[in-house]
């Protein structure tokens, strides 16, 4: 017979994902009341923007088991697409964002279709090369992109009479999009498509034998992740009103991958954690400026050596094992 307490625990366990989403939403809703320093709000907004990219990338790396070292390029096309579309061409911001995202999905199809026929190494090269191409164009095509000095004067987004022109407004804007992306990913990995992807990451041949159209699944998730990166890029451009090529070079792509690995490949919740940690890290170790790269690299190497499933999943697993062992005694 289950007591009321058992029932409550069962309810919490059963609805743990929904409850966590709810708790996070409430926290985000009141966050600007708790934190009024615009600099800190700016940081948490940056986390949201990066999280949108990294959520998509984690689906691709963690669930489809593929390597992309070029997601900063899709992020760049989103940002520069919105910048040029709204400023130079004078288009309305929201439709431009959608058109750019559609264009990015076509670009991702063109890059992904040949590259995803191949094993991971060729894809790593194709995405890396693509990132270098996009970055070179941003720097060299200066009468359109503004060249190395960047592109400024991008208008703020607005809905009706509400203009998103300060850190608090950005907060609600970017975190709303980030939460939508999070829900999308949480639901996707529980759907047939998501289970197919997980099977694919584990063993491609076995997944194919069980009827998963592996190539189609990989291309689909690659496009989804590229579109998310593009939307994040558009938000980035509209929030900062300024973009420059250095926000989109291959090292940024590598940082996105580090965020995935630190949070745990294939862990949706870990993604938020990894993104936050890697975004905030430079702030915490500013005093150690000259050691920044070494610490960054060491964190990545140590996590991969000792907790290859990522910090969150790794620690949770370790604690679970301990508890199970202590019950056994």
């Amino acid at each position, binding site marked *: 017979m289950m007591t009321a307490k058992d029932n409550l625990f069962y309810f919490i366990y059963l609805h743990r994902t929904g409850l966590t989403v709810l708790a996070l939403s409430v926290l985000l809703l009141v966050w600007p009341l708790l934190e009024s320093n615009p600099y800190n709000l700016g940081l948490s907004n940056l986390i949201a923007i990066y999280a949108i990219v990294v959520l998509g990338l984690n689906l691709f*790396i963690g669930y489809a*088991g593929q*390597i992309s070292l070029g997601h900063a390029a899709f992020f760049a096309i989103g940002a520069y697409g919105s910048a040029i579309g709204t400023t130079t061409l004078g288009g309305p911001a929201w439709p431009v964002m959608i058109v750019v995202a559609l264009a990015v999905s076509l670009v991702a199809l063109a*890059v992904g279709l*040949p*590259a995803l*026929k*191949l094993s*991971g*190494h*060729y894809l*790593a*090269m*194709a995405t*890396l*090369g*693509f990132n*270098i*191409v996009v970055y*070179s*164009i941003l720097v*060299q095509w200066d009468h359109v992109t503004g060249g190395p000095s960047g592109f400024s004067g991008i208008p703020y987004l607005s809905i009706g009479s509400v203009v998103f022109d300060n850190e608090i407004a950005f907060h609600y804007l970017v975190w709303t999009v980030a939460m939508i992306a999070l829900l999308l990913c949480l639901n996707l990995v529980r759907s047939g498509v998501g289970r197919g992807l997980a099977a694919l990451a584990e063993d491609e041949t076995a997944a194919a034998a069980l009827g998963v159209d592996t190539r189609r699944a990989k291309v689909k998730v690659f496009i989804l992740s590229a579109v998310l990166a593009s939307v994040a890029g558009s938000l980035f451009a509209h929030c900062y009103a300024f973009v420059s090529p250095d926000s989109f070079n*291959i090292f940024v792509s*590598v940082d996105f*991958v*580090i965020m995935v*690995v630190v949070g745990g*490949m294939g862990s949706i919740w870990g993604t938020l954690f990894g993104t936050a940690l890697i975004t905030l890290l430079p702030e915490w170790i500013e005093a150690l400026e*000259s*050691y*920044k*790269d*070494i*610490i*960054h*690299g*060491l*964190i*990545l*190497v140590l996590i*991969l*050596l*000792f907790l*290859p499933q990522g910090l969150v999943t790794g620690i949770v697993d370790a604690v679970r094992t301990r508890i199970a062992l202590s019950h056994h005694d």
Partner: protein
Amino acid sequence: MSGFQDLLQFVFAGVTSGAIYALIALGFCVVHNTIGIVNFAQVDFVSLGGMFLFTGLFWGGLPMALALPGAVAGVTLVGIVVERLGVRPSRSQNHLVLIFLTIGISIILRGIMKLVWGKNRMAVPPLAGEEPLRIAGAAILPQAVAILIITAIAIGLLVIFFRGTRLGLCMRAVASNQTAASVVGIPVGHVKAASFALAGGLGGLAGVLVTPITTLSYDVGVLLGLKGFAAAILGGFGSFPGAVLGGVMLGLLESLSAGYWSSAYKDVAAFVVLLFVLFVRPKGLLGK
């Protein structure tokens, strides 16, 4: 200058940088064949080669004849250390994990180089004189000739190593089938360490040869190294003749597009052609 002299000049420049890409690509292939991963630390082996040469010449006061082999040996050693401390202790043999590990190691190596040698650009003197040679009207730096000769010798030695020596044959056995190789008593662990050593040596050699032309800084190897990776992919990842062919083709492509189209977009041209080749021949030019 006539059209033919232009062409000759571009071709020579292309083959020279192609030789460097080929050396780096061979380093990528060696590790890929024994462990099955892309070793992104390869790009820093290139910078390290230049750094060690600079240190030997100016801090240690060594003559070039000692500093150059010393630098290559130094990077070889770094290759072994990277394998021993960075890759071998990994609990997971998942390729994704191992590849990301090498990215982490690469970031650490770059951080250390920045700490030791600083961020400034440095100049490394060339092996031979600075007076350009004139061949059929094209001006050619003696360093370029040195690069071609030394690369040719290195590739020749590599062929002998893989066909005639015990360790080389062991490496090929591990590349072909690791389980079978360990069953017949080949020490697979040593072979993997040796492959990192060889990759370090090849990257370091590329670094000591190219830095007199480019200038030296802690991140000089990144773009060069990634082009080496591109060359390896272009030729068919894992194939040694493919790496050399891919390197030379990439070098030619770059210098011809810089000469006849636009030097600002030469990287774009090189990578767009690479993507196109993968589209047509997904396994690279000589890939199986």
